[in-house]
C-alpha cells in the first residue's frame, strides 16, 4: 500500500467516523441511532486495521477485528434488544401522539441547535489539538482532532438527550472517541489494556440494559427526568 493511498483511506475512515457521530445527533429514531453507531464501529475498526497494515503489526489487526466484532456487532445488538423489549404492542392502531420509547422526542437542546453545537465542538477540537499535531505531523496525527471532536460530541449527546438508550449511545460515542484518539496518537494501547477497556464497555452496556429494563418496570418509561432521588 503506497503512502498516498494509505493517507486517503485513513482520511476517509476518519471522515466517516466523525460523520457518524454527527448523524447520531441529527436522528431521532433510536433504532436508526443504534445502526449509525454500528457504522461508526466499522469505521473505527477500519482505522485500526489501516494503522496495522501500514506499520505491519499483526497484533493491531487482531485488535481491529475484535473492535469490529464488539462495537459493530455485539453492542448494537444488545442495545436493539433493549429497545425492542420495551416496545409495547399496539392493540388499537389509531392516531395519537407518539409517546413510545422508540423516539428521542424532546432533547434538551433542539436538533438544529445541537448540530450547530457539534460544529463548534469540532472547531474547538481542531483548535485544542493544534499543538499536538505540530509535535509530529503524520497523516495519523493530523486526524487526531477527529478523535477529540467525537469525544466532545459524545459528551454533548450524553448531557442533552432524555432517553436512557440515547444516553448509552452518547457514552459509547465518548468511548469510541477515546479509542480512536489512542490509535491515532500512539497506534493503540497495549493489548491487555485494550481488552480491559473492551470488557469494561461491554459490562457497562449490559448493566445499563438491565437498568433500562428496571426503569421501565418502575416508571413505565426510560425518560431520565423521572429519576429524581437517590436511594440505597
Amino acid at each position: 500500500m503506497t503512502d498516498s493511498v494509505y493517507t486517503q483511506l485513513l482520511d476517509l475512515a476518519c471522515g466517516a467516523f466523525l460523520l457518524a457521530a454527527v448523524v447520531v445527533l441529527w436522528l431521532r429514531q433510536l433504532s436508526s441511532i443504534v445502526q449509525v453507531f454500528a457504522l461508526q464501529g466499522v469505521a473505527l475498526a477500519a482505522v485500526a486495521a489501516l494503522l496495522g497494515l501500514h506499520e505491519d503489526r499483526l497484533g493491531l489487526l487482531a485488535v481491529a477485528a475484535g473492535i469490529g466484532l464488539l462495537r459493530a456487532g455485539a453492542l448494537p445488538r444488545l442495545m436493539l434488544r433493549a429497545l425492542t423489549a420495551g416496545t409495547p404492542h399496539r392493540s388499537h392502531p389509531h392516531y395519537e401522539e407518539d409517546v413510545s420509547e422508540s423516539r428521542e422526542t424532546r432533547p434538551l437542546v433542539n436538533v438544529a441547535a445541537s448540530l450547530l453545537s457539534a460544529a463548534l465542538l469540532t472547531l474547538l477540537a481542531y483548535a485544542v489539538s493544534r499543538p499536538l499535531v505540530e509535535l509530529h505531523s503524520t497523516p495519523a496525527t493530523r486526524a487526531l482532532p477527529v478523535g477529540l471532536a467525537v469525544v466532545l460530541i459524545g459528551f454533548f449527546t450524553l448531557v442533552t438527550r432524555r432517553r436512557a438508550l440515547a444516553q448509552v449511545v452518547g457514552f459509547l460515542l465518548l468511548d469510541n472517541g477515546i479509542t480512536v484518539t489512542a490509535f491515532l496518537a500512539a497506534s493503540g494501547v497495549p493489548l491487555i489494556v485494550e481488552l480491559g477497556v473492551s470488557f469494561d464497555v461491554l459490562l457497562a452496556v449490559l448493566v445499563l440494559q438491565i437498568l433500562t429494563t428496571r426503569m421501565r418496570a418502575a416508571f413505565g418509561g426510560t425518560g431520565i427526568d423521572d429519576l429524581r432521588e437517590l436511594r440505597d
Partner: protein
Amino acid sequence: MNGTMTATGTAAVTLQVALVAAGAPLLAGLMRQVRALLEGRVGPGVTQPWRDLRKLLRKEAVTPAGTGPAFRLGPLVLVATTAVVAALVPLASTATPVSGGADLILVVALLALGTVALALAGLDTGTAFGGMGASREMTVAALVEPTILLAVFALSIPAGSTNLSAIVSGGIHDPVRLASPAGLLSTAALAVAVLAETGRLPVDNPATHLELTMVHEAMVLEYAGPDLALVELGSQMRLTVLLGLLASLSAPWGIATTASPAALVLALVLLAVKVALLGAALAAAEVFWAKLRLFRVPELLAGSFLLALLAVTASYFLTGE
C-alpha cells in the same frame, strides 16, 4: 491563436446560456414525466412546459391593482440573474472570456439577488399569501446561502482560489480531490442546499397549491400571463444551473479546458446528459419522499451547513499543508 480562443470562448458562453434557457423547460418536463411514469400515469410529455410557456406568453399582461415596480421587475431580475449565472459558471468550458469573473461569492450573490427580487415582488402584492411565501422563502434562503458558500469553499481550499473555473479544472486534473472526505461531504451539503434553493421536495413541494404548505408558489400566486411565464422559466433555469453546477463540481469529466470546438461540443452534450440524469434521479427520489414540516426544515439545513463546515475543516486540517 488568441483570436480563435476568444471566438470559441464566446461561443461556449453563448451556447451555455442558450442550452440552459432552452433546456430548462425540457428538464422540468422530463422530471414530471419520470414522476408520472413511476406513479403509473401516462404523463403529458417532455415538451409540456414549453407548450405552457407559449400559452402564457400569448396572454395579456395583467398586474394587480396597487402593485409597484418591485412586482413588475421581479421576474425580469430573476431570469436575468440566472442567465448571468449560467454564463459565468463553468458548465461546459473553463476557458471562456468571463471565466476570470466566475467567482464563487459573485455567483452566490447573483442567486441571492434573484431570490430577494422575487420575495420583494411577493411582498409588493400586499396579499397574505405573498407575504407569507416571501417570509418563508427568506428563512430558507438565509440558511441556504451560507451552506452553498461553505460547501464550495471547501472545494476551493485545495484549488487555492474561489474562482469556479479554477476549482473545476483542478478537479479534472486531480480526481483524487473529489473522492476525499472533504469532496464527498461538500457534495452532500451542496446537494441538500440545491434542493432547498430550488424549492424541491423535501423542503417545498413544487406541485402543491395548498396554502399551508406552499413556499415558492405562495410568492408568485398573483402573477399571470407573460410575467408568470418568466417566473416559471426563471425557476426552471435556476434548477438547471444549480444541477449543472453540482455536476461540474462533483463530476467534472468532459468539461472543455481548452479552446477546441470539438471538445466544446462534447462538453455540451455531456452537460445535457449529466443534468438530465441528475434531474431524472431527483424526480425518481421525490416519489419516495414526503415534504418536511416547515419547522423541521431549519434542522435539515443546519445539518447540511454542518456537513459543509466539516468539509471545510477536513479539507483544511486533514490534508495538511
